[in-house]
């Protein structure tokens, strides 16, 4: 009888598991085990989250006063560029797929590994290489173009841009190979009985994300390559003095970078779907709608890029088309929100850190998503474009949705990955700091944008000072929350209570093996006989409710 079906059993920590099955540093650097690769992604991603966070704190400290505070203008311009580049390319895009996708996908499919384990290791090495180049750009003086690299500024600024471009190019390869690997894994390595409609929703989310990664990333690869060639070779497509069109750069850049935000948010939504079912011990309300809306977001998201360019000189017709399409994407998210809230109805909700993050996520994704619809309203975006309103909107999604999702995943799957539980009390304290600190940081930024404060401003008119001070104060709360998390999670690695196979009594397939799992994932291949995320009692009459 497996552990997970008996909540009264004493939790057991398996003596031999994937962490200690092979010994020595080289066994890690040459591993083909997706779980070890996921762990190495985790360490790298968290490191770069710290680096990006330090840049963020530097920015917020500088913005405490309207004039120069702790650094010069050129340094500040590098700070926000590197904050963006590190956070987006070195954390947000690789994190949830690289860490949790890698670790969990085979487990959730009842498989022994991903389809191409060596390609998986290559993805990790490419991630490290791209990261090294980005760090190289920082060390060599730093890029100051903004993470958006708009031409002709990016093709003419004397700062160090080429290593950053090369880094992004290589990171793109890592992303493409991961996406490719996951798509093939989901198609070919499902356990017997695991049809598409029985897959856990995290898998649907990763599947949709992987499609975007595979199709969109080559375009940014080419675009940064063209900017690099123009810088180094003096010929390119974007220089107006040679007849080029700088707006063409924007089209090519955003063709990737808009779907990229769905690469960031879809996995997070998948985490929420899985975690909310477990935490509420309930089937997901509207499973099919959530699954299909993930595909819908991926598809429609490819056609919305022009909403970043409403005032760029784009034609009014294009603006209208992009606005309408962007609104459609919002509908898919709204569907998900209704279905997630509906999952709580008549559930058996366990109050825990994942739950706090899920609630935060729900509030933030509605607020962030609808302010997204607001900026997609063309007439309003004329005022908001390139102001702190947009900064607040995307941070509500990037931090409020994606990072909440990441933290949910980190807490929900911590026992699975490490066999131990973290301390719930401290986790709730930290979660409160994070949620409150986040609101205190970014709500003033919405107001600053309304008031007319543009982005990327080293010095600003005095009337924006109060809002900036409030935002910086909030950011210290947010940072403090992360520090607390780091402390109790590191502590829990060694001293946390033994978790056992399934501390959440979750129905997910990954919980049907020990925590931590053995190197080969399952001692016997699981046979799937029920729908995912379903928690009806055994032998009892299954109560069906339709709303």
């Amino acid at each position, binding site marked *: 009888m497996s552990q997970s079906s008996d909540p009264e059993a004493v939790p057991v920590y398996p003596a031999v598991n994937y962490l200690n099955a092979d010994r020595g540093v080289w066994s890690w650097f040459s591993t083909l085990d997706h779980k070890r690769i996921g762990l190495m992604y985790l360490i790298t991603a968290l490191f770069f989250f710290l680096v990006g966070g330090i840049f963020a704190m530097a920015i917020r400290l500088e913005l405490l006063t309207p004039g120069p505070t702790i650094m010069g203008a050129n340094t500040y311009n590098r700070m926000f560029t590197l904050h963006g580049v590190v956070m987006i390319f070195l954390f947000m895009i690789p994190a949830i797929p690289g860490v949790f996708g890698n670790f969990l996908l085979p487990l959730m499919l009842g498989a022994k590994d991903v389809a191409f384990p060596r390609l998986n290791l290559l993805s990790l090495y490419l991630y490290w290489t791209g990261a090294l180049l980005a760090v190289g750009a920082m060390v060599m003086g730093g890029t100051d*173009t903004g993470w958006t690299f708009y031409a002709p500024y990016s093709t003419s600024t004397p700062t160090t841009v080429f290593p950053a471009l090369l880094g992004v190019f290589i990171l793109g390869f890592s992303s493409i190979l991961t996406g490719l690997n996951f798509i093939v894994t989901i198609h070919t390595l499902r356990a017997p009985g695991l049809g598409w409609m029985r897959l856990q929703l995290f898998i649907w989310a990763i599947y949709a994300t992987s499609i975007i990664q595979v199709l969109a990333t080559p375009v940014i690869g080419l675009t940064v390559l063209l900017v690099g060639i123009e810088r180094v070779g003096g010929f390119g497509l974007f220089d107006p003095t040679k007849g080029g069109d700088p707006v063409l750069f924007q089209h090519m850049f955003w063709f990737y970078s808009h779907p990229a935000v769905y690469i960031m948010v879809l996995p997070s939504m998948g985490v929420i779907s899985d975690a909310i079912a477990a935490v509420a011990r309930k089937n997901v309300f509207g499973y099919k709608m959530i699954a299909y809306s993930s595909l819908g977001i991926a598809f429609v998201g490819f056609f919305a890029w022009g909403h970043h360019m409403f005032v760029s000189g784009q034609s009014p017709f294009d603006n209208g088309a992009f606005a309408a399409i962007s609104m459609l994407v919002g509908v898919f998210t709204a569907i998900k929100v209704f279905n997630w809230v509906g999952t709580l109805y008549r559930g058996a909700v366990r109050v825990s850190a994942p739950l706090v993050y899920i609630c935060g996520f*729900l509030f933030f994704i509605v607020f962030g998503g609808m302010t997204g619809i607001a900026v997609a309203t*063309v*007439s309003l975006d004329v005022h908001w474009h390139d102001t702190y309103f947009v900064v607040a909107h995307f941070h509500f999604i990037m931090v409020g949705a994606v990072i909440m999702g990441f933290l949910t995943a980190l807490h929900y799957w911590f026992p699975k990955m490490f066999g131990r539980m973290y301390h719930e009390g401290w986790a709730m304290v930290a979660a409160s700091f994070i949620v409150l600190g986040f609101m205190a940081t970014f709500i003033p930024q919405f107001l600053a944008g309304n008031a007319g404060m543009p982005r990327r401003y080293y010095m600003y008119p005095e009337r924006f000072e109060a809002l900036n001070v409030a935002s910086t104060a909030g950011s210290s709360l947010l940072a403090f929350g992360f520090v607390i998390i780091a402390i109790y999670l590191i502590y829990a690695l060694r001293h946390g209570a033994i978790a056992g196979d399934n501390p959440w009594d979750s129905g997910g397939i990954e919980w049907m093996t020990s925590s931590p799992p053995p190197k080969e994932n399952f001692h016997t291949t699981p046979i799937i006989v029920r729908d995912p995320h379903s928690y009806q009692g055994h032998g009892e009459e299954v109560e069906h409710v339709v709303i």
Partner: protein
Amino acid sequence: MNDLMRRLLWLPVQASTLATRIDYLHYFVITVTMISSIATGLLAFILLFKYRERRRAQSTPLVMPSVKFEIVVIGVPLFFFFLWFVQGYKDYIWYTTPPKDAMDVYVMGKKWMWKFAYGGQGPNAIGTLHVPQGRPVRLLMTSRDVIHSFYVPDFRIKQDVLPGRYTETWFEATQPGRYQILCAEYCGTWHSQMWGEVVVMPAAEFDQWLLEQRRGLSERVDTSTDDGASFHGSIVEYGKKIAMAEGCVKCHSLDGQPHIGPTWLDLYLRRETLENGETVLADEGYLTDSMIDPRGKIVKGYKPVMPTYKGRLAAPEAAALVEFIKSLRSPSLENVPSKEAIYEPVKRP
């Protein structure tokens, strides 16, 4: 009501015909956003409390949505989004259609200043745009270097300004006053200081002003910001005026004579050797940096005595100085390196 909402949301004054139109839709959208998100959070909170776990591994019913539920849930957001799209696009088309009788002003953005020129025999200005109240004004804009963006929050207008192309926007100011122009597309070191001002005058006053400008009468004494508002003339002359006023010429000669600081004659694009042995090209960046941080890169043989002009020079003034320095070229085409310094006692202010 309008004013209450405007203040609650930290929106600036509504100083153009566009602003009021935009703001009404803004209130609608933001209100629905706030209500939806609070309602969602609250509902989640209520549900999690009401349906909290009573005992471990409790089982739960299978709850599914009906087709009708899904249709409602899709239809309601779609309806709101469609409403906003239609109203927003209508306002947007109105915004992109300048009236036929609009007065044209040419705008040129460059790092890090705005230059304005009126059509016909109009006056030129740096940093300040005078316009009449109640009459539409069309701006035809281009950039000299990188992409900038012309943004007047009080008017709710914004338009990217591109190199190699003209873009246009228009507005009709409704109240006299001074309204800030901000650059809204990152353009380098002083992007955050690339400011300007729109001065809206009652129509009759504006006509009078325009007449006076065109007759070349002496500049009106303007109590505007020190961004060269009332200076009319070339930017090089303006730079010369600043050089005199700020005391630059006390240390930097204009005729090649070495003095307390390197001479400005042929300084532009000269290769200077620094104290630490490195060489630097005296381009716009170096010249501007030297004004802000004179101790950073000192030319060999000169003492670190230059005061900083940080906070004393606005970006357009610094740019005008650079243009003035650029204009100081001797007839011979050789690059003359800085000669040794000569020290004389100087009265410090």
